[in-house]
């Protein structure tokens, strides 16, 4: 048991985590441009959300205290688009599991977290693009930032951070359900429920009382509220801290759970 063969690539043990994350991020970004569903989730759908919600609901909904409906609406549908997009991350990892890709990556001399982190990093790039696209389309039809460029940058940062948390959640879901169609549903279902019971489309005050308590605690309300405060101006510290707390809580739970699920993962 003494004569150990030379490591395959002439290096001992693992390659640096950062290198492996970058390589895997590259893989996922390539897929993003080639898998039709992913392309639609990253381009057509966000644009449609902006246009449909603005023109279909914008005429009927007037939110007291805000000017144009799109100023009120955009933060919420950014969260919706990012949430929908994240469901594809669960689909992708379930596919990787059933295709044996997870086995292959787990047999490579790379840290366990690299495969997952490479996926999350690619999602973050996509979400940066999606947020920019939605803001761009929004501006074309009347959306404006009212709190200056620093707040606008904070909007983008918070949107991307939200995407990171959603990505980890969907990685965990995909590894848990192991089957791509179920993973897609498992990712979309909570987003749809939370979106329509949040302040994303209408102010919480217009909801029936029994729903208001739920809507106020709803993370989509909390995150939308922070984004909205950063877009519209006014006090931002409290909503942003609340949103950050939600995201941090989600990450603290989902990251270790997803890594553990990945390490146990079996394709059979």
């Amino acid at each position, binding site marked *: 048991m003494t004569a150990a063969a030379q490591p395959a690539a002439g290096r001992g043990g693992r390659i640096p985590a950062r290198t492996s994350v970058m390589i895997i991020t590259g893989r996922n970004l390539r897929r993003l441009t080639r898998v039709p569903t992913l392309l639609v989730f990253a381009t057509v759908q966000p644009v449609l959300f902006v246009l449909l919600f603005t023109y279909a609901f914008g005429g009927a909904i007037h939110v007291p205290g805000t000017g144009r409906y799109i100023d009120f609406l955009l933060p919420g549908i950014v969260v919706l688009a990012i949430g929908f997009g994240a469901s594809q991350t669960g689909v992708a990892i379930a596919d990787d599991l059933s295709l044996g*890709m997870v086995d292959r990556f787990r*047999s490579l001399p790379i840290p366990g977290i690299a495969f997952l982190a490479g996926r999350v990093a690619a999602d973050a790039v996509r979400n940066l693009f999606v947020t920019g696209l939605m803001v761009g389309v929004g501006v074309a039809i009347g959306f404006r930032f009212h709190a200056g460029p620093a707040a606008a940058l904070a909007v983008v940062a918070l949107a991307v951070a939200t995407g990171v948390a959603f990505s980890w959640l969907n990685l965990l879901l995909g590894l848990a359900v192991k089957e791509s169609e179920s993973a897609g549903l498992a990712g979309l279902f909570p987003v749809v429920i939370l979106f329509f019971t949040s302040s994303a489309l209408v102010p919480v005050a217009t909801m029936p009382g029994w729903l208001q308590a739920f809507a106020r605690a709803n993370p989509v309300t909390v995150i939308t509220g922070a984004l909205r405060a950063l877009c519209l101006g006014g006090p931002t510290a409290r909503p942003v801290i609340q949103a950050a707390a939600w995201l941090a809580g989600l990450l603290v739970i989902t990251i270790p759970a997803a890594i553990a699920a990945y390490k146990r993962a079996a394709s059979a």
Partner: protein
Amino acid sequence: MADMAVVAQGLGKRFGPVIALDGVDLELPAGTVLGVLGPNGAGKTTMVRILATLIRPDRGRAWVAGFDVSARPDAVRARIGLSGQYAAVDPFLTGLENMVMIGRLYGMSARQARQRAAELTERLDLASSAARLVRTYSGGTRRRLDVAASLLAAPAVLFLDEPTTGLDPQGRLALWRVLGELTASGTSLLLTTQYIEEAERLATTIVIIAHGKVIASGTPAQLRAGAGGDRLDAESPPGQDPRRLAAALAGLGTGEPTVDSAAGRVVVPVAGGAAILPEVAARLAASGLTVSELALRRPTLQEAFLTLTGEPAAGPADPPPASAAAWPASRTRSPK
């Protein structure tokens, strides 16, 4: 044991009520090929997954390239190549992109990885499809790419789990040729297969696994010898019932005759070699039967395998040995 590529001692693994591995010992001397042969659900894949550090054994220990798979999984991963039961390549990357990605994850520079990928695509007859998305590949091409990917880092130990399952005969032959070259150049290979021909053709040593246990091991010749002596093939001429021939030859050998009615062929396991032939001639003369062909031969590996695993063969084959009959039903891998 310094020159052992793989050593497994008493590996056991259970999935819920199913015992997948029940104390497997095996050794793969460096530079040789070990063929792990067994029916579906025998535990072959579980064993490969343990040796490739994908799952941990419940009991027992294993060393690959000198490192304990449980204690030093990273050291093992840096020295192995794995091609699992599925062709694990990304359908939305090109063949070349898949290979460069995996090469880089083994620690090669982008240039090294591209160079090595070009070498392997040439060798595995993938050069013409390397620039296409894997999605457009046939199953056989995908499988070859998967094997190519497992070879990227020139691993000291290569694990191939049923590498030719799903390939057409041409693809199978092409892969056998590549694997033959590879092992000739000193790579240690552990190969699982359901195909006896594949094990016989590629493996230096074969272990037969059934119900999570090694039930036999040895060179192909040793395994054939273990199947109990020779086989007497007697062919009944057209118009003569082969069952009458079987009846005439009953009790002659070490087991009951097997009748293949369609071919008119009777096979009898016999001991003692050619010394049995005068007795055969005497019985034929006494019964008034004739044979169109009579041959004494070594058992095929197929016959050895069936004898050892107790898997049902066509027709009333040799009864399974006592040890096979004694396997408790709970040990079999039941379908979920």
